[in-house]
């Protein structure tokens, strides 16, 4: 009958559509070939003339109070915690020293090439928070994601320049190894299972970067002589730039100061 034929065609099309989207389910590619860090087969740094830039990052003013994180819905998260969980947007030390700032060379390294390190950067999930809160990694350098909690997490970086991925990691699972192919400062990372979990990964195309600790200090060593744009980036206060010229075997001091009002945008 005519009506049965059309009905069967509609059902068949629906089933086919379901099949093509249901099949496969292969994981997103976990690694990519990294883009060349700088110019092809470029110059290398001469340690005999290399200098360094050091300094500190401070917050001029009263930092916002960290907010408590309610983990009551997930008892596995509270287990093993010795201190209550709080947000980590602004972490300061003595004298207004600002932690979790990515200090890096933005420009001035044209012509140099830097192979990606093979030592992975560890990115841990413990007490249902990411550690470190801000991780610095070189383009192509492996990131090793570890779950030390007794609950399932997922790690979901949300990049703009790199390929997005989202992987789950149950307790006791093997570490997940990934890398990013392009420079990007910085990639937000979230866990869709535990929405309070947030972190950042700063992917830099060369080794001249550092993420400050609670002392707010940084030290970029082995820098070839030249004029550089140095950037300090904070997740709430955005980037701040300064220009510095480093002579042969010279040590320069550069300090950054942020104000408590958030920047207009990253």
């Amino acid at each position, binding site marked *: 009958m005519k*009506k049965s034929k059309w*009905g069967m065609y*509609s*059902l068949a099309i*629906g089933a086919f*559509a*379901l099949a093509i*989207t*249901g099949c496969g*389910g292969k994981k997103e590619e976990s690694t990519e070939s990294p883009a060349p860090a700088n110019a092809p087969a470029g110059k290398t740094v001469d340690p005999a003339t290399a200098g360094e830039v050091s300094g500190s990052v401070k917050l001029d003013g009263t930092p916002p109070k960290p*907010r408590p*994180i*309610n983990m009551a*819905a*997930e008892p*596995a998260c509270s287990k093993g915690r010795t201190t209550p969980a709080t*947000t980590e947007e602004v972490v300061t030390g003595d004298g207004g020293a600002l932690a979790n700032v990515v200090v890096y060379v933005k420009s001035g390294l044209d012509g140099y090439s830097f192979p990606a390190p093979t030592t992975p950067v560890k990115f841990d999930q413990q007490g249902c928070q990411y550690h470190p809160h801000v991780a610095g990694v070189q383009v192509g350098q492996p990131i090793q994601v570890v779950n030390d909690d007794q*609950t*399932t997490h*997922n790690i*979901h970086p*949300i990049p703009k320049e790199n390929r*997005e991925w*989202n*992987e*789950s990691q*149950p307790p006791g699972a093997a570490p997940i190894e990934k890398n990013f192919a392009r420079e990007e400062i910085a990639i937000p990372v979230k*866990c*869709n*299972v*535990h*929405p*309070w979990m*947030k972190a950042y990964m700063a992917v830099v195309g060369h080794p001249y970067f550092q993420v400050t600790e609670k002392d707010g200090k940084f030290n970029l060593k082995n820098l070839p002589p030249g004029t550089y744009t140095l950037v300090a980036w904070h997740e709430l206060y955005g980037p701040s730039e300064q220009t510095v010229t480093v002579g042969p075997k010279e040590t320069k001091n550069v300090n950054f100061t942020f104000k408590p009002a958030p920047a207009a945008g990253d």
Partner: protein
Amino acid sequence: MKTSSNQNSRGLQAEFAPGLHRYALFTALCTFLLLVAGALVTSNDAGLSVPTWPLAWGSVTPPMVGGIVYEWSHRVIAASVGFLTIILATWLWMAEKRPWMRWLGLAALGAVIAQGILGGLTVRMFQPPAVSAAHATLAQLFFSTVVAIAFFTSFWWQSNIPELEDSRTPHSRSLAIWTVAAVFLQLILGAAFRHKAFGIIPHLVGAVIVTILVFMTAGALKRRFSNVQPLRKCARFLHILIGMQLLLGASAWWSRIYAAPFPQPIAIMVTLTVVHTVTGALLLATTLITTLVSYRMLRPQALAGSTSASELVAQ
């Protein structure tokens, strides 16, 4: 199965099947619960807590922790509604004498399959705003389709209903159809805002237009047909729902601003945004029912055999 056969004033022959009608109502109710489940996923930011689709890492029993509770529950309810819709479409195809009802059943089935595919795409493509907004919009459309099926299978729709004259302009039927269209567009704007396709302004402008149209439609029905129970009921429900939705909209917006500094979605924000979303679905369904009742009962000008409202009351 107990049925009754009626020849109504339009000459349509239909058979009321109470079992089919009750089943359609049940499917509509389950679809409403699915809307709630879907809204909970979005408001709890749990949309990608199960990054694989359709199964959870090859399993149907993922660890029910954190956001996975909302995401997986949504998928289970969605699959159940899918099966209910297959049965509904099959039942309509086999039992309905009205050809357009059989096709409406198939349309509902096509919509729920498309919804499943869109749901999968939101996961696999990491929630692109356009796909997520389309998924949210189609959900509302599917709900309205199932509600319409339940309505068309009701005894009232298939019974002998005298037609009434509506000689005033704008005609009630036209107002009703404009209102349901406006509500549907407003839902699209709301979904686009909720899934970060664009900002709040278009949705606010839409709210103004919808409010005006709902009041115009409900007001016209109340003034012109105050003694006609089905139309009076439609007007009452429209008034109640638009009032609720305006309050909920303002509250939901306030709760989003209040909740912004918190590290995770908080209960008040989740509750208000979810209730606002599903009340929008109820408003769409109500404006659709109002339109169908208006088309069923009203004629823009006097026809031979049509009845005025006062004559109907006197009968």
